[in-house]
C-alpha cells in the first residue's frame, strides 16, 4: 500500500494543474457566456449562398 504515498501526492499535483488551467480559462473569458454554447450546436454555420441560393 506504500505506493499510495506516491500516487496521492501525484493526484494532488494533477489536481493543482487542473485548478490552474480552469482559473486561466475563466480569466480568459471562456466561461463568461454559459448560455449560447448550448444552442450553438443547433445552428449551421456552413450554409453559404453559393451552395444553396434558395436557403
Amino acid at each position, binding site marked *: *500500500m506504500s505506493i*499510495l*504515498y506516491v500516487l*496521492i*501526492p501525484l*493526484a*494532488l499535483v494533477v*489536481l493543482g494543474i*487542473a*485548478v490552474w488551467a*480552469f*482559473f486561466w480559462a*475563466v*480569466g480568459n*473569458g471562456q*466561461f*463568461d*457566456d*454559459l*448560455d*449560447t454554447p*448550448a*444552442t*450553438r450546436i*443547433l*445552428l*449551421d*454555420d456552413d*450554409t*453559404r*449562398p453559393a*451552395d*444553396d441560393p*434558395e*436557403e
Partner: protein
Amino acid sequence: MNDDTACFHCALPVIDQRYTVDIDGEPRAVCCPGCKAVAELIRDSGMSRYYALREAPEPGVGKPEEDAGEWEVFNRRDMLDAFAASDADRAEATIYVGGMYCAACSWLIETTLKGTAGVAEADVNPVTHRLRVVFDSTVIGLGTLLATLSQLGYYPQPLAPDSTAAPEVQEQRAALKRLLVASLGMMQVMMFAVALYAGEFQGISADMERFLRLVSFFVTTPVVFYSARPFFASAVRGIRTRHPGMDLPVSIAIGAAYTASVWSTFYDGPAVWFDSVTMFVFFLTVGRFLEMRARHRSIDRSVALSSILPNTVIRVDDAGETTVAANQLVAGDVIRIRAGEPIPADGELVDGTTSVDEALLSGESRPQAKAPGDTVFAGSVNLDQQVLVRVQSTGVDTTLGTIGRLSERARYARPAFVRLADRVASYIVVAILVIAAFVAAAWGYYMPERAFEVTLSVLVVTCPCALALATPAAFAAAGSRMAELRLLVTNGDAVESISRATHVAFDKTGTLTRGEPVIVETRPLAEDQSAADLLEIAAALESASTHPLARAFHAVDTPYRPEQVETHVGAGLTGSVNGKRYRLGSADFVPGAGRYAAELADDRPTIYLGDDDRPLAVFVVDDAPREDAAATLDTLRRMGLGISLMSGDREAAVSRLAGELGIGDYAAECTPQGKLDRLAARQQAGEVIIMVGDGINDAPVLAGADASIAPAHSALLAQTSADVIMLGDRLGPVVTAIELSRKTLRIVRQNLAWAILYNASALPLAIAGYVPPWLAAIGMSASSLIVVLNALRLSRAGNDSRVITA
C-alpha cells in the same frame, strides 16, 4: 401572402403591403424598405434559419436605423485608438450591441462578422450584450463593422476599452472559481473519507490514517479559506451590523469543524470531519451561484439608457467642425445639434432657439421652449432648429446618468421582504446557538468524548438555510421569469403585495392609453375637397416633421410628396403639394381659422390645414386606448380584482375612456394628493391595491400603493417609484405579473412548510446523538437543494398567460 400583418422582420404592424421578401420560398410582408433590406441581407448570406430559431420578437426590435453615414467617422485612425486595443494590424474592440434578445441574434452577428474579410474573431455574450471582435485594421475599419451591425438591425455602440469588463462578468468569474475549487475539493476529500471509513471497519495502519487525514487537510484548506470566504465575510458583517444572518451559524459550523479536524489531524484526535466541511461548502456555493445567475439575467438598464444617446457628435472649435465620438466630449466643448437629433450631454444653450422633447426625463409630452442660457439635458431631443450647446457634464455625470445609477443601485439593494425573512432567520440563529450550548453542556457532563461531535451535528442539521433560502430563492426565480416575460422587478417584496392584491387602479394617459397622439376626427371646412384627401395632404406636409403632434400624421399613408416645406417655430409649417401652397398649424397660423377655434371649444389639441386665405380642414388629435386595454381589464375582472381609473385629465376625456372600457369607478381632475387620498380611503377599507401609472403626477401614488407597475416609457420618477417596470407596448404584463406573483407565494409557502418540518424533525434526533456530522451535512444540503429546486419550477411558470402577452 401571409394573413399576419406584422412585419416578418421587426414585428411592427405592416401598413403598406408594398414590401415583401421571399424567404423559404414564401413571400413575407415587411413594414419598410429598411426591414426589406435587412431580411434580404440575412437571406442572401444564407442565414434564413435565424428567423426559425429566434424567439418571438418585441415589435420594433431589429428595425434598422436609417442613417448609416454616421459610422464612417469610426473608420478614422484616432477612433481606432480610442475604442480598440490595437497592434500594427490586429485590433480588438468591444461593442455593446443594443436590440439583441436571444441566442439566434448572437449567432447571426457572429456568423455575419466571421464571414467578413479582415475579421479574425467575433464573440457575442447575449447576457451582457457585448461583442468582442478581433480584426485586421488595415483591411476593415471599425466604422465598417459598426455599419454592418447597424445594417443587420442592431444598435451598436463602441465601448472604451476600460469599460469592457462588466461587474457581472467579474462576479461570475469569481463565483465560478470558488465553485470549482469547492467541487474538486469535495470530490477529492470524499475519496479519502471513503478510505478512512473503510479503515474504521477493516483496520488501517496508523501511519496511513495520519497520511490520509493530512492530505484531506491540504485539500480542505483552500476550500475553507477560498471558496467559503464570502460566508465568513458576510457573517462578520452580520455581527457588526447586529443582524446576524444565516451565514453566522454556517461560518461557525465550518470554522468549528475545520478547527477540530485540524487539531485531530496533528494530535491524533478521534475523528476528522473534512468531508462534511467540503460538502457543506460545496452545496452552499452551488446555491449562491444559482442565485447570482438569476440576478444577472435582468436587463442591463444603465447601458440601455445610454444607448438612447447618439454615438457621434459635431464639435465646433476654432479650427472648424469635426465629428467626434460622443464619449470623447469633455466639459467646455461646444457642439452643434441639428434639428431632430438627440442631445448627447447636459449643457447650456449658447446659440439658437428651439424646442426640445424632454419626455424621457420628465414625462412631459409637450415640447419645452429653449433660448440661449437655458439648460438642455442629455437624452432629450432637439426638435426645431439647429443650435450650439456648451457641454457642462457628460456620461455618468449627466441627469440621465444619475437616474441610471439610481436604478442600478435599486437593483442591487436587497428587498425589504427578504430582509424580514433574514431577521426571522437571525432569531432562529440565536435560538440554535443557545440550544447548541445546552447540548454541549449536557453531553459534556454525561459523555464528554461525544460532546463535540453531537454539538456539531446540531449546528449543521438545524442550519436554517432552507428556511432562509425559501423566500429569496423563490423571489429570485420569479424575478428572472418575469424578466423573460418582459417585466423588470425593482423591488422584490412587491411580489408578495401583488399576490394579495384585491384592486387595480389605473392612470389614464400613457397607461390605459398609448400616450401617443392619433387623429380621432377630420372635419373638412371647405366644400370642394374630401376629408380623406385633406388628411393625406396634411400627412405629406408633416412627414418630415419631428414635432410631437406630427407623429399622429405619420401613421397616415399618403400618395403626395411635399415640396418647399418650411418650419415656423412654435406656429406650424408651410409647404407645397401638387404645386399648391398650404399652411398647417395652430388656429393663429392659418388665416380665418380663429372663428372655428371657439366653436370647437374642447381642449383636445387641434391642427388646422389651410391655404393662404382660408382654412380647409381641422384635425382633432387625441390619445387612443392601448390595443389590449379592454382584453386586459376583462381578464383582471375574471380574476376577481376590482378596477378603477384615476386621472389628472379633464372630466370629459376621462368619462369618455371609462365608458369605452366599461370602467364604472373613475375619478377625473385628480391632483397627486387627490389620488393619494382616494388610495388611502381604499386601503383603510382593507383593500390591497396595485397602482399602474406612468406620469410624474403618479409618482406619489405609485410609492403609496401596496404595489406599483409602470410602463417602460414612463417618466423616470415614476419608474423609480414603481416596483415593477413592464417593457413593451402592452398592458397584458399586468395580468402576467399578478398570476406569477400568486404562484410565487404558493411556492414560498411550500418551501417554508418543508423547511420548518425538516428542522423540527431533525433537531431532536441530532440532540439525542443519532445523527453523525456527515449525515447532518447531507440532510441540511438536501433540504436546501429541495427548496431551490422547488423555486426553480417558477422558471417555467406563466406560459399560459402568453395568450395576452405574446
